[in-house]
């Protein structure tokens, strides 16, 4: 049931507090994700102070942005919301699933063998026949490379 999913969370920390405190809040969120949510952090992106596109109700015109990408179970992610709710310094946040990243690894694995499987039979006969034809014309010494094609070529030559 507890399927691992990839989530991305972005939160904005109040600019009114010191840089160190903001850093400690980010650490707190990271620790919370790892301990309480049971997540595995993939990457942490600290953007630092950034101007907001609009004035937030609390009157801030800028904020400290951070983005965390992590793996977690679908059931426990909601716990992160609780942390945000009890942390007044974080005034905006957003968490959602990165379905595109979840999809990315599995199709590649399935695609590659298929492509290879398709590509090999296509390439092999064309190459071998080309080689056989090219090399068969000057002399017939190319036996080991293409044994199955050789009789056909020979018959073709005989016909020609």
């Amino acid at each position, binding site marked *: 049931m507890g399927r691992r999913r990839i989530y991305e969370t*972005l939160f*904005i920390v109040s600019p009114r507090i010191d840089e160190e405190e903001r850093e400690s809040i980010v650490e707190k969120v990271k620790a919370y994700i790892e301990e309480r949510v049971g997540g595995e952090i993939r990457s942490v992106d600290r953007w630092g102070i950034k101007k*907001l*596109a*609009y004035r*937030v109700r609390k009157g801030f015109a800028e*904020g400290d*942005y951070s*983005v965390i990408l992590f793996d977690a179970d679908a059931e426990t992610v909601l716990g992160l919301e609780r942390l945000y709710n009890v942390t007044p310094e974080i005034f*905006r*946040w*957003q968490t*959602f699933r*990165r379905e*595109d990243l979840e999809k990315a690894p599995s199709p590649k694995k399935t695609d590659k063998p298929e492509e290879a499987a398709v590509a090999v039979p296509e390439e092999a006969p064309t190459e071998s026949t080309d080689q056989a034809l090219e090399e068969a014309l000057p002399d017939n010494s190319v036996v080991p490379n293409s044994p199955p094609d050789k009789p056909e070529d020979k018959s073709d030559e005989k016909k020609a």
Partner: protein
Amino acid sequence: MRERRRRTRKKCRLCASKTKYIDYKNTSMLRDFITEKGKIIPKRITGNCAKHQRLVKEAIQRARHVALLPYTKE
């Protein structure tokens, strides 16, 4: 004239680039799909297909929520 106008149908830019996911953090790209006032441009004008317009819409709405893009601008 009418026929001519009908024929000049725009192709979806995002289909052409085979976009699978639109990142809400990429505001410079999203700005192509909003007006100066911050409204989402309808697909009638941008020529986006329904699928990509939906992805654009979702990304813009997410970006707006975290104040990366404005809801409105006077």
